[in-house]
């Protein structure tokens, strides 16, 4: 089949699913209860595109394929095609989006069982996939932006899915509004690019930009693109929406965090990598922002007790790693980490969903027994413990993914994270001093990652049962619809690492992802060239260092949490004092935003500065015109007596006047 038709199908199937599931049940209420039908349609509309993508991936010949549907708009110099592009980068991203997305759909069919908005949920999910596919398959920035805004909208819909809860609506608003700030910068970048180059198409942009544009222009463009990316990919200072986004159903968290929305900022940078590489200053900004985000989120994650919040901050932290990779010019490694992260983070999120699901059953049973459950939080790790015994599948997969993200050797997270650290080291070795900072922060963050993830696993799945009436009430393993996806993702968490073996092991030959994406091999993703290569023993030493840190911290955390359980958090608190409190309060970012940005800047300026202007001058002008019209019309109204004779009299006077003028006016 032609590529044209296949790309059309990939895009249209999720859209069709969204329309079918979103519209039909509106008019046919009987459909709303048909869960198996809805789930089948919703899932297959993502799985079929995945199969098609696999076919495209297998038959891809190495030349980018452009699929042009129609001219979207034409005005003056601006010509925008509705065009899509298949190349190595978009293929990998599409595989992640539809593959992991499909698994999450399958999981959702079980997780959302019994929810009154089942159809609505799947319509949103399919729409989300459609928007994300638009984003990764676009062949110009405008179509990409369409998908970019689309995932923003869908995240709003999904985070606020349980919209009757005020807190959830607020979280949805927050995600949307914070993202708008980044989107504004992205738009500015697009305008700048168009005014300088006269085109938004990737073909023009990536081949010409570096030679045509001045250094300053490139700096501004890349900086604006990066600010756009900080919104979607949750970097300092725009990450605050992401932890709150936990308000949505857990599969949504998994989808947003692992496979789709948050990776889009990074995808944008990777797609733009040929021009990003042109600007040293902004690359340093990107790398340092990534490093600070990584360590900041990792320290917060240590103090969280909500199982999903730990994972949320972990995502922010891992995204920081990806930006570190981008900032040291290793974009293919960033995409590699996107790939491995998609698997283990989705696995962790879905695992936490499975845990929450069964803890909700515990809550339900407790209520049945007449227990007071008003303080019971099914997401609080302090009321869990020993779940491995009751939910072995969930426990084992969560354990595997925990090992993977902690960087235990031979699992996926080890290879991708170690590669990032190695690239940072190599870049620093090559004379870029900021890369040393990135490297050190990366090492510390790796240790923190291993610590908080191990803590999360042992608090949840090991130790003693801490929920009330634990001897009587037991949680249960979830249905196959939820455990099968977990095992698929766990398998990915083990295997995907081998797609990017480090050069020292594979002698540069087996690093498939580098060969596939790297510009050296004809791929679309540029990379920084490094002059002085690190010697082999140092490479081995670096790998050894990260292995030792990961394994060491894992066993340390395992021991303290096995022997002391949640009590260990108290000793941490005692040891770190004020710092721990700062972590617990998330570095007071939200307070900062509320006090400075919302209260001082926005409320003060709008209340004291703009509101009087609005009410006096703008409203005054509008109301003034209206009342002037009213006044003058009330004068004229008196002439309109409705008596014909009055009009006739006026006519006669007029005639007399005209005749008089003709006779005597000269």
């Amino acid at each position, binding site marked *: 089949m032609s590529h044209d038709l296949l790309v059309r199908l990939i895009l249209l199937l999720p859209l069709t699913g969204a329309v079918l599931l979103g519209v039909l049940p509106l008019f046919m209420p009987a459909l709303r209860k048909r869960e198996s039908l809805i789930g089948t349609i919703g899932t297959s509309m993502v799985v079929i595109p995945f199969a098609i993508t696999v076919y495209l991936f297998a038959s891809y010949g190495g030349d980018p394929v452009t699929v042009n549907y129609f001219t979207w708009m034409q005005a003056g110099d601006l010509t925008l095609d509705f065009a899509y592009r298949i190349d190595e980068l978009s293929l990998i991203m599409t595989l992640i989006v539809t593959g992991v997305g499909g698994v999450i759909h399958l999981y959702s069919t079980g997780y959302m069982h019994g929810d009154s908005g089942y159809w609505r949920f799947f319509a949103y999910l399919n729409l989300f996939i459609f928007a994300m596919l638009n984003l990764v398959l676009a062949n110009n920035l405008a179509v990409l932006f369409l998908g970019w805004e689309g995932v923003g909208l869908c995240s709003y819909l999904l985070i606020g899915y349980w919209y009757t809860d005020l807190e959830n609506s607020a979280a949805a608003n927050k995600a949307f509004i914070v993202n708008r700030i980044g989107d504004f910068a992205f738009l500015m970048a697009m305008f700048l690019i168009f005014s300088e180059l006269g085109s938004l198409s990737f073909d023009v942009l990536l081949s010409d930009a570096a030679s045509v544009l001045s250094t300053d222009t490139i700096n501004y463009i890349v900086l604006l693109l990066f600010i756009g990316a900080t919104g979607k990919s949750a970097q300092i200072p725009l990450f605050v929406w992401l932890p709150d986004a936990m308000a949505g159903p857990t599969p949504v968290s998994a989808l947003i965090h692992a496979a789709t929305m948050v990776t889009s900022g990074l995808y944008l940078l990777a797609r733009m990598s040929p021009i990003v590489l042109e600007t040293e200053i902004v690359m340093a900004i990107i790398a340092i922002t990534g490093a600070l985000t990584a360590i900041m989120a990792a320290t917060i994650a240590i103090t969280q007790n909500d199982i999903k919040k730990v994972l949320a901050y972990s995502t922010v932290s891992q995204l920081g790693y990806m930006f570190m990779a981008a900032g040291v010019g290793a974009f293919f490694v960033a995409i590699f980490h996107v790939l491995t992260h998609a698997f283990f983070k989705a696995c962790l999120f879905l695992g936490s969903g499975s845990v929450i699901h069964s803890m909700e059953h515990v809550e339900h049973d407790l209520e049945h027994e007449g227990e007071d459950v008003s303080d019971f939080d099914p997401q609080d790790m302090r009321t869990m413990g020993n779940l491995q015994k009751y939910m072995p599948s969930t426990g084992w997969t969560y354990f595997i993914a925990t090992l993977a993200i902690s960087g235990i050797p031979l699992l996926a997270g080890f290879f991708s994270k170690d590669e990032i650290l190695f690239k940072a080291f190599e870049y620093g070795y090559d004379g870029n001093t900021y890369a040393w900072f990135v490297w050190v922060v990366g090492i510390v963050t790796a240790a923190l990652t291993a610590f908080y993830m191990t803590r999360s696993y042992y608090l949840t799945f090991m130790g003693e049962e801490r929920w009330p009436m634990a001897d009587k009430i037991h949680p249960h393993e979830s249905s196959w619809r939820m455990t099968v996806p977990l095992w698929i993702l766990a398998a990915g968490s083990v295997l995907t690492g081998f797609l990017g073996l480090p050069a020292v092991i594979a002698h540069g030959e087996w690093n498939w992802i580098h060969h596939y994406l790297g510009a050296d091999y004809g791929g679309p993703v540029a990379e920084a060239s490094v002059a002085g290569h690190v010697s082999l023993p140092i490479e081995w030493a670096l790998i050894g260092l990260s292995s030792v840190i990961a394994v060491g911290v894992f066993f340390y955390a395992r021991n303290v949490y096995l022997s002391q359980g949640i009590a260990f958090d108290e000793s941490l608190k005692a040891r770190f004092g004020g710092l721990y409190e700062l972590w617990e309060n998330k570095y007071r970012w939200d307070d900062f935003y509320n006090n400075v940005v919302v209260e001082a800047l926005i409320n003060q300026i709008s209340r004291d500065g703009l509101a009087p202007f609005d009410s006096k001058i703008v409203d005054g002008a509008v109301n003034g015109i209206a009342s002037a019209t009213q006044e003058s019309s009330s004068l004229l109204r008196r002439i309109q007596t*409705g008596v014909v004779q009055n009009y006739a009299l006026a006519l006669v006077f007029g005639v007399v006047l005209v005749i008089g003028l003709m006779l005597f006016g000269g």
Partner: protein
Amino acid sequence: MEVALNWYLGLSAILFSIGTLGVLFKRNAIVLLMSVELMLNAVNLTLVALSQSMGDPDGQLLVFFTIAVAAAEAAVGLAIVIAIFRRKLTVDITEINLFKF
């Protein structure tokens, strides 16, 4: 004796003015219509007089049109007056002010 043209025009002006005053100041709708007739006939008189004096029959031709239109106007006008009278039991036009804002 020959009647000068100015006499005709003078009479016509007087008749027209009486008609105009009637239209402007009478309250009875029937009288109003009659006043309109008077104004039309004043114009007819002017037309005929000028036609005669200039030896051109066009003016007399116009008079036929005027008479035809006046007949139509009287028919429609009276019909309206009757219709209004049936509804409001009056032909006083100051009472008939449906269009007043």
